[in-house]
């Protein structure tokens, strides 16, 4: 087999071409850095296109009482106060600028009557806050950023005669290993999916923007790309992962028919009037409003229904509770035997408004289910249930710069792959704005980091050769296990034992099974050659999925409370003591996952004072409150 390795030199390499990656790359290029964007799929196919609801930013276009402080409060509440407060603060403050900037790139959001960007209601947000384009906001965001990159390339073409001179997209390219020079990032090694040929990027700064980990679960809305590559690359490079136990199960994924299993029904169906009913036809969410939210949510169907037309004088319908509460409620209904035939509940918008109004407000939703599943949402209710959607945990980063913690330097992370911003649960709409705010910051600070270097770090040939050997191993090995079988087994372990409701016994069992899988994954083999061979690609991705799953299972076993995206049946209460603890994973020399507890950073007083004392009492310990009072 040929071992030719194509070599490229860049200042900043961005791994991942979703919203965060593209925004980071734009910023690095604007800072004058030679930038490469690496995409596992074709340019513009990123998973960001799946985001339907919108991008949350306190622009105050629809309700002028909205501002960054209200957005900050909502974000912290949604994350159950475990959020990195500084990230939540930066996010709330900078999101409007990032959205407005998109308009200068050519984005066309839906408008208010006075011509500003329209904003819609969404679960967990106090005011209408989500900038949106029908229900295809993610696609608009990706296309806008993609076209901005093309426009930068056109500027470069006019100046240098080459589109690729300053920013280049390497599509259908997978990175398998980061290369270090001492503690510094020196480059990234990977392969072109098309040809199977290897490629080495030498670069002093790498931005991870690889998204999430959902492919380790049976029912997921995530695409094949979501194999936790960035999480695993960071771990192996000496960075740390934070709070990997927090996974968001979107409450309303389709459970039937199979062609759309796992696909999300956007929350705006509920924001626009859709309600959840069990098999008895009961609107059950009223029974599941937790005490902390009791004040903001309606108690009767009449009051809830009035809210859609008069939000100022009525409390919100309980269907708009944060995602984890809705997911848990659905789970309880199904377990109590009041579920739909396919094991979900019914989401009904058909009986709530006229067909043409549904089609106008939710065009692609309507279109999608008609085409994919022959389900007409204007005529019949949908069957929905929890599906693995988003990982709140991720690379532990310095909030202002996106620089990874741990022993490595020159590594940055933004978007879903980074952790901390969303605490234990992400509000809908906060991920698109997260991408933009922290994508920009990561690109900016990666460029600034490159400026400070005296000499370029250099990857060692031994490491390159080792990376090539690891990548080729599944092809060389004969008679090993089928990668697809291994993936199914991993998905079964994670889905059944580390799913939405967790128990100590099952988690221990899961860790044991993951150990067995580790041995099997080390022996995976792929048939066929190097050219566009999906079996081989999956075989390489498996080790990333495995190590990230281990982090999730370990952290889930350690955290003995229920909070946001982590529910322990044996510890059903949220504990103020545990709110002070972040769980941080790193990799030992032996390849074992090491887990430790770290204190959650202390929120600045002026931010702390944005909250009611009575509200804080639900989250923080009495000592903490007393301590603040004393100051």
């Amino acid at each position: 087999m040929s071992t030719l390795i194509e070599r490229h030199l860049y200042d900043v390499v961005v791994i991942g071409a979703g919203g965060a990656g593209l925004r980071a790359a734009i910023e690095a290029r604007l800072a004058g850095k030679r930038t490469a964007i690496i995409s596992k799929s074709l340019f513009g196919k990123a998973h960001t296109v799946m985001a339907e609801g919108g991008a949350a930013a306190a622009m105050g276009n629809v309700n002028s009482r909205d501002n960054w402080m209200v957005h900050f409060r909502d974000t912290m509440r949604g994350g159950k106060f475990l959020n990195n407060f500084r990230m939540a603060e930066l996010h709330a403050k900078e999101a409007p600028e990032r959205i407005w900037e998109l308009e200068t790139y050519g984005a066309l959001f839906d408008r208010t009557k006075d011509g500003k960007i329209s904003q819609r209601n969404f679960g967990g947000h106090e005011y209408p806050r989500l900038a949106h384009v029908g229900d295809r906001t993610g696609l608009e965001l990706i296309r806008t950023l993609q076209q901005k990159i093309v426009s930068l390339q056109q500027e470069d073409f006019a100046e240098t005669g080459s589109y690729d001179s300053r920013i280049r997209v390497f599509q259908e390219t997978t990175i398998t290993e980061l290369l270090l020079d001492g503690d510094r990032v020196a480059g990234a090694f990977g392969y072109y999916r098309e040809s199977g040929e290897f490629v080495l990027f030498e670069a002093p700064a790498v931005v991870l923007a690889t998204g999430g980990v959902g492919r380790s679960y049976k029912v997921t809305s995530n695409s094949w790309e979501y194999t936790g590559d960035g999480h695993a690359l960071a771990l192996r490079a000496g960075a740390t992962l934070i709070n990997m136990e927090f996974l968001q199960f979107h409450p309303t994924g389709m459970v039937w028919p199979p062609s759309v299993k796992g696909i999300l029904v956007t929350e705006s169906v509920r924001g626009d009037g859709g309600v959840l009913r069990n098999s008895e036809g009961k609107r059950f969410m009223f029974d599941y409003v937790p005490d902390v939210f009791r004040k903001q949510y309606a108690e009767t169907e009449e009051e809830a229904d009035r809210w859609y037309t008069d939000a100022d004088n009525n409390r919100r319908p309980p269907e708009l509770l944060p995602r984890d509460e809705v997911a848990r409620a659905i789970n309880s209904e199904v377990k109590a035997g009041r579920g739909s035939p396919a094991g979900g509940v019914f989401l009904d918008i058909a009986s709530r408004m006229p067909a043409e109004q549904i089609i106008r407000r939710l065009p692609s939703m309507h279109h999608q289910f008609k085409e994919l599943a022959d389900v007409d949402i204007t005529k019949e209710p949908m069957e929905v249930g929890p599906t693995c959607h988003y990982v709140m945990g991720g690379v532990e980063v310095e909030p202002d710069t996106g620089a990874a913690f741990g022993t490595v330097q020159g590594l940055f992370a933004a978007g879903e792959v980074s952790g901390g911003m969303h605490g234990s649960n992400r509000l809908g709409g906060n991920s698109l704005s997260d991408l933009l705010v922290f994508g920009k910051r990561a690109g900016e600070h990666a460029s600034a980091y490159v400026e400070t270097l005296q000499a370029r770090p250099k990857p060692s040939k031994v490491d390159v050769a080792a990376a090539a050997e690891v990548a080729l191993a599944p092809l060389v090995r004969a008679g090993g296990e089928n990668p697809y079988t291994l993936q199914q087994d991993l998905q079964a372990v994670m889905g059944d034992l580390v799913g939405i409701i967790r128990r100590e016994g099952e988690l221990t069992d899961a860790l044991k099974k993951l150990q067995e899988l580790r041995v099997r994954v080390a022996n995976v083999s792929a048939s066929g050659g190097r050219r566009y061979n999906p079996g081989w690609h999956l075989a390489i991705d498996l080790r990333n999925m495995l190590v990230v799953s281990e982090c999730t299972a370990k952290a889930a076993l350690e955290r003995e409370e229920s909070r946001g995206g982590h529910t322990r049946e044996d510890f059903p209460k949220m504990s103020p003591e545990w709110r002070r603890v972040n769980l941080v994973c790193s990799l030992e020399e032996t390849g074992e996952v090491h887990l430790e507890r770290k204190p959650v950073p202390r929120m600045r007083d002026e931010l702390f004072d944005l909250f009611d004392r009575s509200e804080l009492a639900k989250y923080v310990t009495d000592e903490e409150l007393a301590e603040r009072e004393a100051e």
Partner: protein
Amino acid sequence: MKRHFRVWRGDASGGDLRDFDVEVNEGEVVLDIIHRLQATETPDLACRWNCKAGKCGSCSMEINGKPRLGCMTRMSTFEENETITITPIRTFPVIRDLVTDVSFNYEKARETPAFAPPPGVAPGEYRMQQIDVERSQEFRKCIECFLCQNTCHVIRDHDENKPAFSGPRYFIRAAELDMHPLDDRSDRKEYAQASQGLGFCNITKCCTEVCPEHIKITDNAIIPMKERVVDRRYDPLVWLGRKILRRDQLGSDNMAPSTTPGVAGTSGGIPSSRARRPEGAPVGPDGHMDIAELVAPLQGGLSPFGEDMTFPLPPEEVTYHHPEKDR
């Protein structure tokens, strides 16, 4: 229930249809069947896919000869005993199995002049009416599955037309920018005619028929673009004005330079001359190239081509691409 499938397998050098009998369950789509094939009989069957929800436009293929998305083609739409034949999209060169080289489209995207922001309007100050943005929004629904490009008879089986023809996907891009309430360029139609090959299109509407997003490509983009181009061309005064203006506006035949001052301004203070041309091998502090003798299995300098190479190489294995002048 088992159903009969014929799937094209091969690469640039050739291939053929292979027969498979695959289990099909209620409610499945064609892409589910491809995945079942991969998980069972053919782990290396190459096929692009991402969202499996008709939103990303990756799984374009030809199913019984029709350009379709695999994830949007329900198995229940076929007759009980119908054989289902799956082939790669034909207009683009095959890489392997169902995967084709769609770089043509990305090249055309680069040649289409980008959005030109209105000068003097600060971010946050953009004001547009819903009714005005909706016209362009229709075209921005495009998921870039390239089925319209694939089906367009101007380039399907006519590679010779490709250099001069951008295809329906980029006509709607031009129309989108033409109808954008705040785009600062006024020559989108002329550009489409002069540089995108709009004139090749004889409005057979094949592109509209295959569009999974149901964008009315022909009626709402191509025809209005053609009509307005015609209007202007036949008004002698406008025509003359355009003729004079266009030369210096367009600059070169292929692409006018982007006019995006607000954007480049961010980097205004930082020299962009750090863009590097190709570099030679790195040299150590002693001025010599490094020779990794100690770590190598062989003594002496390593062959720069790898130790397992014998020469001459068969030309088809060489990954060298002769540099081409960018178009």
